[in-house]
């Protein structure tokens, strides 16, 4: 009985841990489409508030463009994200300089995109237009870099 209680307690503790884990460790799977063939890296950034968007990422990941599948898509995962509202930016770093290259007028010269495929006129969209909700069980989103 005690043994059983102890087992129950351990199970409950595990369950609580699991629940806690689920609450704080959702994954965002981002399917980036329209990836150009060849060299370069897909750079992904996560933003958790409008103030930092689109300058300061709260989390990031990257993948080689050579991982592109037949449909021109690369799949990246942002791990351990607390449920809430987020926006994602992506660009294909064609020249490998680790940043979104721009021309002399400051306009991007590498393919880029945002969650919801939100687009601004000659600039980034508003955070609210790119925002999506991450539930406890995680989410898969698609966006295109252009």
């Amino acid at each position: 009985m005690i043994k059983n209680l102890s087992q129950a307690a351990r199970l409950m503790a595990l369950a609580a841990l699991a629940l806690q884990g689920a609450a704080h460790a959702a994954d965002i799977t981002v399917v980036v489409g329209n990836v150009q063939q060849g060299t370069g890296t897909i750079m992904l950034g996560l933003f958790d508030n409008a103030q930092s968007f689109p300058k300061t990422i709260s989390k990031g990941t990257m993948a080689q463009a050579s991982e592109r599948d037949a449909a021109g898509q690369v799949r990246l995962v942002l791990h351990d994200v607390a449920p809430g509202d987020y926006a994602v930016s992506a660009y294909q770093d064609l020249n490998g300089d680790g940043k979104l290259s721009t021309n002399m007028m400051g306009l991007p010269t590498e393919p880029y995109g945002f969650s919801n495929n939100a687009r601004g006129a000659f600039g980034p969209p508003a955070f609210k237009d790119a925002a999506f909700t991450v539930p406890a069980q995680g989410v898969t989103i698609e966006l295109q870099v252009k």
Partner: protein
Amino acid sequence: MHTPHFAAAMARRQLLKSLAIGGLASVAGSGFAADASSGAFARSFAPLDGALHAGPGEGGQWAVADIAITGRLPEALRGTLYRNGPARFALGSTRYQHWFDGDGMVQAFRLQGGKASYRGQLLRTPKLLEEEAAGRFLYPAFGTPMADAAPVRSADAVNPANINLLPMQGGKSLYALWEAGSALQIDPDTLAAQGFKAWSPETQGAPFSAHPRIAPDGTVWNFGYSAHSGKLIIYEIAPGGQLRRQTLLDAPQADMVHDFAITENHLVFLLMPLLAKPGAPPVGSLDRYEWQAQAPMLVMLVSKADFSVRRMELPNGGVFHIGNAWEDKGLIRLGYARYTEFLPHLKGLGLPSPTARLDQLARWTQVEINLAQGTARQFDVGLAGVEFPRFDARLTGQRSEFGVLMQNSGSAGNDQWGMDSVVTHSGTTTARFRYGSDWIAEEHLYVPAPGSSASASGWVLGTALQKASGRTTLSVFEADAIASGPVAQLALPFGLPLGLHGQFVTA
């Protein structure tokens, strides 16, 4: 003075007679409505309306293998006249409202051995292909807001390549130019679009204006502006196409800069007080431009050597086009087509009916910049209703007196849109050929006679649309005897969309 031989004189007289008769007949036949010009303007674009489809020429193309010639096409005039202009204004349920908005179309007249052929091509830009697939225009244009518009991700996503052309390497390479995005490389023979040109990684997708200037040594100078940026990009490109230098200059009052000029040592900009209101996108939005009636026109002089900048002032005024400029004993001299009502004129260039009060049109104005004093002044030389200045391109940046202008003589009525005359000028001497009120004449340019360095030795040629027939004719004049009328006219059996600028590539 050039003396034409007897046969040419005869042909000229016959031609003049046929022009006069054609003009009278059309006046009698049409009843000559007050809106004849604007009706002809809109009708010239109608054959391009809708999805891509067959042309009116041979084999369903925009093509004529052997154009009917009246008069005699000079044997020595060999080469290709390329012209560009906005051409397609309607797609699906969407329709542009301003002349500058249409998808670009290039026309090529090839002259060889006294014969001539024609070919035209609507340019397959990424914008055109995307909108063609969608069955409607997707993006806002310069003078047309678009309901449910797609966001503009870059200038080249909306680049119609519809203003001018830049031939390089003797015509082996050819670019169709807009002014807010990249140059579009096109095949000089088939006119097929080959993709946007990046002169360097730093200028990829950046504005490359529609009026580059080619120095006598083949160096191509150009600039790019972007509303709100307060900057001008400067390009110096070697004759072979390699970018030599690029720089970014501070340039207040550079929200719409269509043209510039070069001299031996300088680049010359006339920056008009036309400001894009805050919040307006860098491409387009005519309705968000504001004229600063109290502000001067700024002259911005850029040293070719070190890109250092000097500024001076001219009276308030507007400008699209500048003629040649040159240095003359401590002065820089240039001419430009000056507007005192620039914004009303620009807004009047709408579809379907452009309006142009004569007092809104430009006057030919000469500028004198004193380099030592850092001052500029200007003189009105008494030529009103003018546009499309051209000069001897061999003398770009050097003294050249001979020039060509188009003129609205006003004789067709004060509200008649369109040029009806071609004017040559040299010093204080002018000569004029008036097509007549049944014609809308497009830009005419000067082609020097091969091997001759004499001023005005050669030809002036250009297209004109006859309102009554709706057909386009290319006319060739002796440059020093324009008032005698054309020595040859090449009449297409159909009309072309009224366009903007052309370049002649000598064969």
